[in-house]
């Protein structure tokens, strides 16, 4: 599945990349991402996830073709 990250997460990951391995939900995806870069763990714990311009929670069943946007806490204004 494709991953897009923004803002501070770009200090830990490329802005866009693909993850290999199975992740059925956002918790499992976080585990995969922490395995890629453990330094991102704290930030990932406060992130929201979105698919197709809508937020998802851990109940959402991730699909292999999903493009998942990982959204750190906002800091606009």
């Amino acid at each position: 599945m494709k991953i897009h990250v923004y803002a501070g997460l770009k200090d830990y990951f490329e802005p866009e990349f693909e993850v290999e391995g199975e992740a059925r939900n956002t918790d499992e995806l976080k585990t995969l991402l922490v395995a890629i870069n453990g330094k991102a763990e704290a930030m990932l714990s406060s992130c929201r996830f979105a698919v197709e311009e809508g937020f998802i929670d851990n109940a959402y069943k991730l699909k292999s073709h999903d493009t998942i946007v990982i959204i750190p806490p906002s800091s606009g204004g």
Partner: protein
Amino acid sequence: MTPSSSFRPAVEGREAAGVARGLSGEPIDMVGMLAGAHHPGAGAVVLFSGEVRDNNRGRPVSFLEYEAYGPLAEKMIGEILAEAKSRWVLQTAVAQHRTGIVAVGDTAVVVITASAHRGEAYAANRYIIDRIKHEAPIWKCEHYADGTHEWGNNCNCHAVTGDVSKHIYESEG
């Protein structure tokens, strides 16, 4: 004396066209937004302008850079404005947020509300800017005078609410 009015019937059209709300990679036309916000039924117009400070936590700031997840940010700003209009009787509710590099002293975000009385216009304006700052996927990066940079992390509501989707709205600088 001939009555004068700065009412511009194009206000609703501007909103409908998305001209005065959402995101902008160019400097915000605050004067133009305000000119379009007047309404004969509004006795109060409140304009909030969020501007770039030259310091952050005691460190000199050279400029800010804003990044947004555009499609969702635009959608959410529209929903926040609609929600405000459902809570208060507003003749105007518009907001625009910058993306890209914004210089010290320049405007990063503008929210304008107009209502019959100031109470509603103030309350709605505060509601809109708080929700945009906390919820819309827009991030700022402080670029310091010493050449370092730091992504903002203003919204830490989840530390209190225990839920990254739940926010508390209090005054922020």
